[in-house]
């Protein structure tokens, strides 16, 4: 995180910050704008900031540098960028915030996008699972991982895919944001189990057969990190999913009826 000096940080860091800084600033500005009207739950802001921090920590700085040479660091970065970060971002409910903060025309456009056909296909749980887990299998079971260390563009594309696919999966399965065509809880529960099973199986095969150019001991340590981090994230997502599934008559959404605008 040094200044924008002539030689400056490497292009990846710059690009990450180019996305991360507006993400934080924009979110905070929108929350401030809400302050006069309805309060925005601070927990959501905290989740959003933590999510951005997790993604930044996994893609820049010492951890990212170590990840190029050490598969254990790579596994930690992978968990931050592909699982924990996106889940926290989803819990920040950015779409809900945007719908509130945008002027009516913009909000209408956004809700039009939410209801569009492509997004309907994209937010199908099966599609989200294949995009996220399929991407991982490709990364670790093809020469792709090696290319990320030699070609910065590939490296960037892979990280982008990790974040986006992770976000998509978390949003579809446990998101708080409005999502037309959301599948039933039962459907999403099955998708969650399939996704995490695929993740666990991939971690175990990495333990047995290291990806190209990774020595066995390091690969095993990294695979164990991946495997158990996957469990932690699964339990968190299961809790988020079941909390609403089994919500009783006493449970109410955070929006009070009194706060509803009419019309």
């Amino acid at each position, binding site marked *: 995180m040094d200044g924008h000096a002539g030689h400056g940080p490497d292009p990846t860091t710059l690009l990450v910050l180019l996305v991360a800084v507006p993400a934080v600033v924009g979110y905070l500005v929108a929350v401030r704008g809400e302050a006069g009207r309805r309060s925005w739950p601070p927990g959501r802001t905290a989740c959003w900031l933590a999510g951005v921090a997790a993604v930044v920590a996994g893609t820049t700085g010492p951890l990212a540098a170590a990840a190029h040479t050490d598969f254990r660091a790579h596994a930690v970065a992978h968990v931050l960028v592909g699982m924990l970060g996106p889940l926290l971002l989803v819990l920040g409910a950015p779409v809900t915030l945007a719908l509130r903060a945008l002027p009516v025309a913009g909000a209408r456009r956004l809700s039009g996008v939410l209801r569009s056909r492509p997004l309907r296909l994209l937010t199908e749980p099966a599609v989200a699972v294949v995009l996220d887990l399929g991407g991982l299998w490709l990364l670790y079971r093809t020469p792709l991982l090696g290319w990320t260390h030699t070609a910065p563009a590939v490296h960037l594309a892979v990280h982008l895919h990790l974040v986006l696919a992770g976000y998509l999966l978390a949003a579809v399965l446990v998101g708080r944001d409005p999502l*037309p065509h959301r599948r039933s809880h039962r459907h999403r*529960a099955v998708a*969650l189990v399939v996704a995490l099973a*695929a993740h666990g*199986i991939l971690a175990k095969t990495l333990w047995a057969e290291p990806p190209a150019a990774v020595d066995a001991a390091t690969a095993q340590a990294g695979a164990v990190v991946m495997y158990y981090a996957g*469990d932690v994230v699964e339990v968190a997502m299961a809790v988020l999913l079941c909390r609403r599934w089994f919500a009783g008559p006493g449970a109410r959404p955070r929006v009070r009826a009194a706060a*509803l605008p009419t019309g």
Partner: protein
Amino acid sequence: MTGYPDRHPSPPEEPPRAPNARPRPGPALSTAAHGPARSSRDRRTGTPPARASWWSGVLVGVGVAAFVDETVFHQLLHWHHFYDRSTPEAGLVSDGVFHAVGWFAVVAGLFWFAALRRRAELVTARWVGGLLVGTGAFQLYDGTVQHKLLGLHQIRYDVALLPYDLTWNLVAVALLVAGVLVARRDRRPAPAGPGS
């Protein structure tokens, strides 16, 4: 398959605008603040309390068995390997799926348990019976199908396996039998009174 408003639906969050095109039957925006997950609750309250208690227990039992297997035998005793490479793919997939199912089952089962308690519908004997049967069933599946049939890791390495296999599966059967016996102690008349 229809979506339903399981979370605070979008209307209260949005400025007035185009009609919300949520493709579901039933009331539109005006009832936005009714309780969440109404349709699933309706479906669930359709389950008699005794049966709901039973299945909630089974879910937690499966999760507990998976958890004990993982922590005690993999991590504390190091009897099983993390993955011993000799496992064919079918065993690996089965193990992966059941590992994921176990975690989800325990969370879902506990939430269900809490919901039943909140509605004073928990039938304790059924729940405990389900817990034991779920634990036993998972252990029996693990000990027969996964260990033997699919050739997943063994219970232990470099020892005579037979006593271990026998003990493992006999314990599982004992749990199953105990669970059925406990569940049958619920001898209440059909219209379910207050549970617990």
